[in-house]
Every structure is written in structure tokens, then in C-alpha cells.
């Protein structure tokens, strides 16, 4: 049985005059690492909210079709019931932070789920050290820089130990080094057992980790496949997807009659292919 299944799912926000999601069919299995990308406004955040039940439980509106997550129909379960299954890192980290300091923020989720206090402490300490938050431990979440807030938001979602991590542009405020660090952590957790669904515009950073890219445009899924299949499609540039530069070099070489052995997603991969071909 798939872990997540969208069955002809459509959604229109209350008061809106168009569908944010249009007849979406999507199946995601346990252990996958799926990148959702597509132009601004195409419905990526709405799709994320659907997986953890915020749509339709919190964001109301017209719905058709069903979304089944880990056997539960999101029409019939509260956001709290969905919380250990699908943990969402919000696009705007500040909107996710609700407590008075970083330590409390990370503990907040698991405490509310009734996790044993000793285990909560253990998770808080582990995440503070893993995400390099020691110097921020006592700070008020609203008195931090954008990138610091984003790291805390990621930590508090990971503290839930969700079966599925849904992260909505989790690197948008991060400096390149901490983006790398966070993506490495996510990739390791995925290899262990966490299913990952990540919304991202900066495909140069994440494509190498993912097993699959789902491309959206205007509320629909317009392509779905492995990163190397999807990123060479002209459709990507047509709708405004940020194709990694290494992949773009591959594409323009091919136009000039030079076919490299495979599609590179990173600078190293491109260099190695060139060295092999020479």
C-alpha cells in the first residue's frame, strides 16, 4: 500500500475563484525522497498542507477527491492525529514558531504529543547539537535572524520524529553552508527510514539527494520522474524551473553534438563526465 495517495484531488481556497489543485493524482511510497517544484503560485504549498491535513482541516474550501496518508483519509482526521505521521516545515518559519525560547520551541511538538519527558529532553539536546543551535538555546524565536529561525523551525519539526517530513522551501533563508548541512541531515534521515517531500526552487542543492521530482504548473502535476529524466526536459525552462547549471551545460553540449555519458546534476558530476569523455 502506498504511504501517500492523492486520488483525483482538487481544492479551492474559501473565497477564491480558481482551483489551487486540479485533479491531482500522486502516489508516494515509503522511503522515497520527492522534490516538488514549479513556478511561484503553482500550488506547492497547498500540496504540502494537504499531506498533513491542514487542507482541509484548517484551510477550508471546496474539495473533491481524496487524500489518503498512511491509511487515513485526511477528510476524516484532525491535524493533531496527522502530526506524528506527517511533520510540516512551514515556508515562512516565523509563522511556525510559537514559544518563548529555542529549547521550548523544539520540545513543544513532542510534549504535546505526550512523548515521555526524558525522551523529549534527549531529542532537544540531539537536535541542538546536530543543527548547531547551542548559541541560540535561550533566545526568543522572534528575536533571531531569518536563517536562525529557519533552522529552529526545522529542528522543531524533526523533534516530532515524523514518518513523513514535508519541508516547504526549508533552505530559503539559509546560508549556503548551513543549507548543505541541513540537506545532508535530511538525506541521512531519508536513508534511515524517513520519507521526504521537499519543496525547492534551488534544484542545484537538492537534486542529487532525491529519487524523484514532481513538476507542477497551475495546480496540476505536469511531469513526474527521476531528477535526471525531468531536468533535461525543455518544459523545465519553459515554465521557469531553476535547472542546475551543470545540467544546463549538458543540454547545450548536446545541442552542439556532444553527448556526455549521463546527465550531471552537480559540478563534480559534470567535471567527471568531461574527463571520461576526453
Amino acid at each position, binding site marked *: 500500500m502506498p504511504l501517500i495517495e492523492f486520488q483525483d484531488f482538487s481544492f479551492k481556497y474559501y473565497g477564491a475563484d480558481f482551483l489551487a489543485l486540479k485533479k491531482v493524482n500522486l502516489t508516494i511510497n515509503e522511503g522515497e525522497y520527492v522534490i516538488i517544484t514549479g513556478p511561484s*503560485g503553482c500550488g506547492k504549498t497547498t500540496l504540502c498542507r494537504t499531506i498533513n491535513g491542514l487542507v482541509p482541516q484548517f484551510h477550508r474550501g471546496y474539495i473533491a477527491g481524496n487524500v489518503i496518508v498512511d491509511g487515513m483519509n485526511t477528510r476524516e482526521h484532525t491535524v493533531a492525529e496527522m502530526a506524528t505521521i506527517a511533520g510540516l516545515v512551514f515556508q515562512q518559519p516565523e509563522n511556525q514558531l510559537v514559544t518563548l525560547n529555542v529549547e521550548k520551541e523544539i520540545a513543544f511538538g513532542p510534549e504535546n504529543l505526550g512523548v515521555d519527558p526524558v525522551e523529549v529532553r534527549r531529542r532537544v539536546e540531539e537536535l541542538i547539537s546536530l543543527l548547531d543551535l547551542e548559541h541560540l538555546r535561550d533566545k526568543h524565536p522572534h528575536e533571531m535572524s531569518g536563517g536562525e529561525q529557519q533552522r529552529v523551525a526545522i529542528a522543531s519539526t524533526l523533534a516530532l520524529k515524523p514518518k513523513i517530513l514535508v519541508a516547504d522551501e526549508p533552505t530559503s*533563508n539559509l546560508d549556503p553552508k548551513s543549507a548543505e548541512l541541513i540537506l545532508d541531515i535530511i538525506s541521512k534521515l531519508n536513508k534511515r527510514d524517513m520519507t521526504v517531500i521537499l519543496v525547492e526552487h534551488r534544484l542545484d542543492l537538492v537534486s542529487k539527494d532525491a529519487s524523484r521530482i514532481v513538476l507542477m504548473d497551475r495546480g496540476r502535476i505536469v511531469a513526474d520522474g527521476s531528477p535526471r529524466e525531468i531536468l533535461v526536459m525543455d518544459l523545465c525552462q519553459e515554465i*521557469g524551473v531553476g535547472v542546475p547549471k551543470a545540467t544546463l551545460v549538458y543540454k547545450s553540449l548536446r545541442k552542439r553534438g556532444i553527448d556526455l555519458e549521463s546527465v550531471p546534476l552537480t559540478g563534480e558530476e559534470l567535471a567527471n563526465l568531461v574527463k571520461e*569523455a*576526453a
Partner: protein
Amino acid sequence: MIILENVHFAYDGIYTALQGVSLQIGDGERVAIMGTNGAGKTTLVKQLNGLLRPHRGRVFLDGVDTKRYSVAELAREIGLVMQNPDHQLFLDSVEKEILFGLKQLGFSSEDARVRCEKTLSNLGLEHLSERSPFTLSGGERKRVALASVLATEPRVLVLDEPTIGQDAKQKENLAQMLQDLNEKGRTVIVVTHDIEFVIENFPRTIAMANGTIVADGPTNSVLSNDDVIVRCSLTAPQLTIAARSIHSVFPEVPERLTLLSNLEGEIVRVLRGV
């Protein structure tokens, strides 16, 4: 001309966010500020329009200490787009949001309307003009915040993380608008983590860490300095990584290539053996 002279700033007296920052930005420059999360970039740009005032040191605009100006007076010269659009947007329609800023600065209704329409269409927001900013997607909301400042074409534009939430096409549109404004003589200052956006659009880069400036100079030399890269938590862009690695085997390929067309040309040369 903007001059910062040994600027210090501490939030609530405990967290020292700026520890003696000095810099000069001339009229018509395009400057990028990059660096570690928490380095003080946002704190720095807020000193420019008076949202924050230095605790020590001074900020000059055209030779006048800005402590003599109110925030409203500075706003006529310096337009700031904040990192988080939620801190900036407060009206219930996109159009009202843009027109408000224009009217504040004294543009006539007619002129304001023309500018509003033009800016909305340049940023791909024309179909959203009646919408409430609070029902928009993250990227759309950021573009509304950008539009409200870009429409006024201030002498100095300061954009804190303008590419957050933007797809490749929107980023190109934005770069084009910034170039057009710069050609009209506007100074453009951006804070960003997007190294490719910087390489393609900004000739000068200031790199920060721990409340100080670590490097300030031509983008190409600042961003190819390994020491700066490490200290300011940056990483080399894909094309540079590829060029370096190819250079290690084919020394005739320059290791500092940052533009796609150049690297492509070199690879063709290597593979065709010409």
C-alpha cells in the same frame, strides 16, 4: 553616496550584531551583501533607512549624518524591502499596498496608477491586483513587497533576500528590473544567499561574518577567495566547482570560470581537441 563609519549595534545590549562596520557605497553602484546566518546583514541594512540607529559610529547620506533625518525623511531616498514580507504588507489588496507607498512619496494619482500597473505586470502580479496579500503564496507575497518599493524607484534600493520563494523566471524578471533601474542611476544593494544571482548581477560583493565585514571588493575575487568562502559560510557555485576539477586535469581550462557560456566553450575545446 552612503558611508558607514565604525558602526556598532547590539539588540537589547546583549547580542552584538554589528561590531564596527565601515563601508562606502557610491551613487549608481550595484552591491551584494552575503554571509553567514546571523552575521548582521539585516541589521546592517536597517541602519541605512533608520529603522535601526547605530549605538556607536555613524551613517552618512551624501555627507550628512543620518541621525538628523527621521525614518520618513530617509524613506524618500532609500527604499527597503524587508526579508520577511509579512513585516511589510498591511493593506487588504495588492493594488492598495502599491498605491499607498506611491502616495506617501507624493506621486500624483495618475502617475501612481501608471507605475503600479507597470510594476505589477513586470513582476507577474497583474492578475492578483485585487487580492488580499494574506491569501497569496509565499513567492507572490514577496513580489508584492518588492513591487511596493520598486514602483517608487527610490534613489537607493535596498533588497533583503529578494529571491526567496522565486522561481527561475521571476528571478530573471527581477534582475532585469534592477538592471533597468540601475541604468537610470539608482543604487542597488541586495542581501542574498544566492551566489549565482550575485555573480550574474552584482559587480561588487561585501562578505560578512560575526558582525564584521570579512571582504569587500569585486565579486569575482571575493567569491573565489577560499578563506572568505569558509569564514562566511559560502560554497562555490556548480560552474566553479566543475571548472576547477576540469582544470586539475586540463590546466589550459581556466579555474575561475563563472559563466555558463565560457565553461561550455572550454569543454567543447577539450573534447574536440582544438
